[in-house]
């Protein structure tokens, strides 16, 4: 008896008209609605600040915000990679501090700028490797693993110079931050934009980027499906460590002085930026654009509080309120079940 199931026509399916798909623009707007909301919030914030302080929106002040935000932006992108997999990287602040100390120390000992920077980036790579291996191979909880490397890194940053701060001897090192590899674009802005675009493209268009979300959403289903879960998670921690180190050398180039406490505030700020940007700490969601906007938001708040002349002790409280609003709006936006 003839079995129609086996005719190749049924199998391949008639080449029917594809189901109507939303336009590219419509999809982008719906995909990025959290990010659009944050961008809007930043504009409102700047509007309020400029109403209170006439000179807030000058080119100079906006450049200041960009300069101040750039290390946080880069760290937030790194943190995002880990958060998407459902993990967290508490070590980034210590990596930041230690990288600065080691890079400056190498230069003080006569190494050139390039090998010293490479050495500094090595700190992030190594920490990321240790974090990633302990999480994937040893199966320890990301919070615990990175708490360990946070503590160790933070203490090493003091040990290497006995707590002394180190000035960068090489005067030209400032060019890493303030030079212009591309004429007309200052480097820190260039790095931020390139990293943002690269990371967003990676997350949306690279298969490995999609695996990050898959692992964060359902690690078990991902593993059974054949996703290389360990490799994916390891790569996320490597990325986070490397970007924290890169943020540190960029900042060192600008400030020209390495301090053991340089990164102590940055870990929580990086996590906050990612959360404001719409990522869930349970994993599976988040975008690079959101994380970057979150970092800009945090910096803009600090800048605004300073300009308005409020005691800077209020910065933390204002940031707290913003995070609360961001997560509540996100929660409501995702809808009542």
């Amino acid at each position, binding site marked *: *008896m*003839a*079995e129609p*199931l*086996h005719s*190749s026509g*049924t*199998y*391949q*399916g*008639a*080449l*029917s008209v*594809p*189901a109507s*798909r*939303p336009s590219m623009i419509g*999809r982008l707007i719906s*995909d990025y609605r959290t990010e659009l909301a944050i961008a809007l919030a930043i504009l409102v914030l700047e509007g309020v600040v400029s109403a209170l302080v006439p000179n807030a929106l000058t080119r100079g002040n906006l450049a200041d915000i960009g300069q101040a935000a750039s290390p946080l932006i880069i760290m937030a992108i790194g943190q995002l990679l880990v958060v998407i997999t459902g993990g967290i990287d508490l070590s980034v602040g210590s990596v930041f501090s230690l990288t600065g100390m080691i890079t400056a120390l190498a230069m003080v000992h006569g190494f050139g700028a390039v090998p010293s920077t490479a050495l500094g980036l090595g700190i992030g790579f190594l920490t990321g490797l240790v974090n990633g291996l302990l999480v994937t191979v040893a199966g320890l909880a990301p919070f615990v693993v990175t708490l360990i490397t946070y503590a160790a890194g933070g203490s090493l940053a003091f040990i290497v110079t006995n707590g002394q701060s180190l000035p960068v001897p090489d005067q030209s090192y400032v060019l890493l931050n303030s030079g212009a590899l591309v004429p007309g674009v200052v480097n820190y802005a260039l790095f931020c934009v390139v990293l943002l675009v690269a990371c967003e493209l990676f997350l*949306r*268009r*690279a*298969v*490995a980027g*999609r695996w990050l*979300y*898959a692992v*964060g*959403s*359902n690690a*078990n*289903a*991902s*593993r*059974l*499906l*054949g*996703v*290389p879960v360990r490799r994916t998670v390891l790569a996320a921690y490597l990325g986070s460590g490397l970007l924290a180190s890169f943020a540190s050398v960029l900042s060192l180039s600008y400030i020209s002085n390495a301090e053991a406490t340089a990164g102590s505030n940055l870990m929580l700020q990086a996590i906050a930026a990612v959360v404001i940007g719409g990522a869930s700490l349970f*994993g*599976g*969601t988040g975008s690079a654009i959101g994380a970057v906007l979150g970092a800009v938001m945090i910096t803009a708040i600090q800048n605004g509080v300073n300009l308005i002349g409020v005691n800077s002790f209020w910065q933390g409280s204002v940031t707290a309120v913003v995070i609360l609003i961001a997560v509540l709006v996100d929660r409501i936006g995702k*809808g*009542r*079940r």
Partner: protein
Amino acid sequence: MQAPMFLLEARSIVKSFGPTRVLRGVNFLVAPGEVHALLGGNGAGKSTLLKIVTGDLSHDAGNLVFAGHDMASPAGAEARAGRIAAVHQELALLPHLSVAENVALPLCKRGLALFRPAEARRFAVDALSLIDPAFAAEAVDRKVAELTLHEGQLVEIARAIGSGAQLLLLDEPTANLTAPEAERLFTILRRLVSERPIAAVFVSHRMQEIRQIADVCTILRDGITSADRVPVHDLTDVEIIERMGQQSAASALGPMPHPSPSTAVLLRRSFGTFHLSGPATEIELPPGRILGLAGGPTGPSRLIDALIGEAKKPIWKLCRNGQSVAPPNPHAAAASGIGYVSGDRVNKGIIAALPIIDNVMAARRIVERRIWVGWGEPAEADRLLDTLNITNGRLWALPATMSGGTQQKLLIARWLALKPQLLVLEEPTRGVDIGTKREIYTLIRTMAGLGSAIVWWSTEHAELISLCELVIAFDVQGEPTGALAAAELSDERLAAATGMAA
């Protein structure tokens, strides 16, 4: 004349998720003293309705009255507390607590009251003994995490039955039970509803079971009630399926014709013959063979885990031309063309945070070692969804916007166009309505016809009998009890070999 008193009165219930109207005015009336079957295809709204009754979801419009109280009022919510117990398809147990604690804790109304372990234990033993006294004594002190799926199901049912609730909602409770256990469950349900003014709502896709246990049925179709409190014996099987809106599937009840060998052979692409060996079993698995696994879940799981590289110390070996080709891990399995589809969508299948397109294309990206998400993927995914008659799937929507059965088809779609050399199916039709089951059978046949060897575990003997050329039966302990060829397959043989209900 006095209107009959209903324990649960749900009238004109409406519920939408975003733009999708799942319930469009459903009536669902349950009287005390009855076992009430709630039937309907996937996406008909059964699960949504049950969640509204338990209060897990809110409804947009309609009246919901439980034991005479409007549930929208605070008094109604209070009336409901502790008086409706549900057993869901997905287990809702606390893995780090013992069985006794899992059964007894929900009954501790006041958080500050003392928890008396001895009393809790006694209560749990009593509740479990309703189903299986031997299991009660053995399992009561174990941690839930140590239980098998099947044992966990027993605990959930015992907890619901023992809770003293007036309304029991059982969503496919027998999916993981053996025949004697299912029998005991039915006996106990009968006794409970006859002794006390309580009611049980029973969701099942197994017609035989529905006839065995249910008095009346309510059938949902596309979010409306197509049969409102109709006695089950007034309807024939075909009528029930028609009311579920699956006329085309009505013929699925008959035996399915085997594919003619000539067409099948023509389309086969040769991968070579697999050789499968395990405890006292040697099986040849040529391209296109559908090997069934019956019984379980212990035995079939061991074999499946070995095939997909998930077993730590596999007792099954997979060879080809005398060489071992067993994959060391699931990634290697997928990359070498061993496909895997589980009926446990929530834990082993769907990636809920990624849109449908990523879920569909996932296997292809691994098999073809893709580095970038190709621009052609939307068209590819659209074609696959069209092939599977998935009409409501928008590629960038999340899988949760589709019904469970459609999600299941999506998981099979992952492998459909890839022609895997071996396709491993783990209860792919679990919790799926008859129409979708029929489609899944077709897909399995099609893939076998294209040259994939198929290993298929099912607890529904009927589907194994109609599709498999060879079935390995496992007993409850997980030991293989024999390999049955197509000609030897029958309900009785399989039931005897596995100890499971059909």
